[in-house]
């Protein structure tokens, strides 16, 4: 079985690091030909949700998340995720709680989760004027930081405990909508 040429090389793929999905799209016909016949089959790209990588890195791997790909058992995926439980203290509440940060994928989800856990308090009020509680956390260095500045993954990695301060004590006002915008630009 000699490596015979199966058609012209894909000349359009000049930049190796840039993922050009069109070229990998399956078509009826031999590779290298231009037989783009109409077909209703689904190319891989249509079955996935792509999160574009940040423009600063030329990461060739797409963040593709097709259902069931890569083919890894759920039990293994869950074990990989691990769990990161941190204590959560709320000003005025006598008991602390614990949350698993690995359960959430964004600041928004975390704050929603905390709101649900502590019942009636609002951590950021949607209209943005006068937040009730300010979320802060202690990082690896022992410093108390405002939640939301660093990318989510970095936060999960460095957060040791969380404290929800009553707004008047913190003297700061950051709106939840601002936080959402920040998350979008950081690509979290």
């Amino acid at each position, binding site marked *: 079985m000699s490596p015979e040429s199966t058609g012209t090389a894909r000349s359009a793929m000049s930049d190796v690091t840039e993922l050009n999905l069109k070229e*990998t799209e*399956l078509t009826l016909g*031999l590779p290298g030909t231009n037989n783009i016949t109409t077909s209703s089959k689904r190319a891989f790209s249509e*079955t996935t949700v792509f999160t574009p990588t940040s423009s600063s890195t030329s*990461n060739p791997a797409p963040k593709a998340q097709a259902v069931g790909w*890569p083919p890894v058992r759920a039990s293994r995926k869950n074990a990989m995720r691990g769990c990161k439980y941190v204590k959560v203290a709320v000003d005025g509440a006598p008991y602390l709680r614990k949350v698993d940060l690995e359960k959430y994928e964004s600041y928004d989800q975390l704050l929603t989760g905390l709101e649900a856990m502590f019942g009636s308090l609002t951590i950021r009020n949607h209209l943005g004027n006068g937040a009730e509680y300010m979320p802060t956390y202690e990082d690896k260095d022992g410093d108390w930081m405002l939640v939301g500045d660093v990318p989510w993954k970095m936060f999960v990695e460095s957060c040791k405990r969380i404290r929800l301060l009553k707004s008047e004590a913190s003297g700061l006002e950051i709106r939840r909508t601002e936080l959402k915008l920040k998350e979008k630009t950081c690509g979290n």
Partner: protein
Amino acid sequence: MNYFPDEVLEHVFDYVTSHRDRNAVSLVCKSWYRVERCSRQRVFIGNCYSISPERVIQRFPGLKSLTLKGKPHFADFNLVPHEWGGYVSPWIEALAKSRVGLEELKLKRMVVSDDSLELLSYSFPNFKSLVLVSCEGFTTDGLAAIAANCRLLRDLDLQENEIDDHRGQWLNCFPDSCTSLVSLNIACLKGDINLGALERLVARSPNLKSLKLNRAVPLDTLQRILMRTPQLTDLGTGSFVDEPDSEAYFKLKHTISKCRSITSLCGFLEVSPHCLPAVYPLCSNLTSLNLSYAVGLQGSDLMKLIRHCVKLQRLWILDSIGDDGLCVVACTCKDLQELRVFPSLPFEAGPSPVTERGLVAISVGCPKLHSLLYFCQQMTNAALITVAKNCPNFIRFRLCTLDPTKPDADTMQPLDEGFGAIVQSCRRLRRLSMSGLLTDRVFLYIGMYAEQLEMLSVAFAGESDKGMLYVLNGCKKIRKLEIRDSPFGNMALLNDVGKYETMRSLWMSSCEVTLGACKTLARKMPRLNVEIMNENEVEFNLDDAQKVDRMYLYRSLTGKRKDAPDFVWTL
């Protein structure tokens, strides 16, 4: 034909152990069938819906050991809806009603309830061995019943199950009189366990050879347990975390060095790299090492450990080992037969450090390799051709590029030639799973060369019906074919409908087959169950031209199953 009395035949048949050989024996003549069925003790049912429990019991009254498989393989990857089926209860109920003296039960991908476990536990006085793999539907209450009632329990092996952990005291349910345990695997339990009960159980089990702990068992408990079990051959650690200068860690190092019988090591569900040196004394005896859950270890930690493992035959590892680490494996583990490299996930962490380079190194250093599961960032035809030349003994070859349609990383060509080389060189290949950019050509090669192929997994591959036809026409021994997201349609499906009765099952999801074609197939082949599962669940559009989302067909002697949920339509 029958010149010997039955007792002699039976004695001869005792030496025939494989299921396939015994099945062949039973086909020779009526008296051989009779002697074989009465003397058969071990029965394997690859698809629990292919036959009824009553019929199995009737044919094999001497049944002692039963293995059952339920859901299709792609259920592992969330492609099968949750309530699809695979219930073990009708089997256990039927067995309990009969006079079968069941001793061993092994289940894979089945739904098991606490009630079933309880019924199992008190219906069979000689019950010895329960192995559950990738099962769900039960809680630690069910385990408590097994512990309490199975007086002769030898094996309780729970592998990767979804168990609802009620954090009860189920380990306490083993009576003091239970001293028969040989194998205990609780690694998949998520909750806390009663450490005292565990230690006492281990202390009164002198025959214990295999022990796999869960995350809740800390290092100091492990040390105390190992003090009691110097005869252990197979160890799975729980949490392997402590300060390097702690007394517990010091004691552990000393205790472990005395466990000279351990040949198989796994676990490390939580691990601090600085604690790993404690197991170095075991490494030179290890034949099996599974570090695929040890997320806390870096490539450098793994390399340091593996350098000591000269006798290794089986290695399961994460891709954090990297190509360089695989080179260390290739230099050190000359007896390696099975290698699995799993992805560390998630994607966001960047590209995987495992590529074709690591695989080529392994093929050069480990010529005895026969089973491979390899998740990698990229692959090339040249690498696969080299691997095929170096390792002609592959029985199982599963390759997964993290991007499922990624072409050859050097030439940008499809990976047809590479996989073609594998099937042409590895004449004994029984299982193949491919990924990367693949055209119909790779299927041509498979049909031509893969004569022993029994199981093929296809994803995002091929260009036309021809691909699937090459496989169905060429692979005489194919038993399980599972296909997802590939452009195979009605023409391929209906070309040779008789073929499916020679196979266990066919799975096709997100392909081009239509409802009409499935109906035609079902009509022509009454002994096949053709199941359709659609996204919209209950409402089935009756338009024959509509494509089906998921089709699962399998041969069966029982006809349409009665436990199918609403969203499964058997044609």
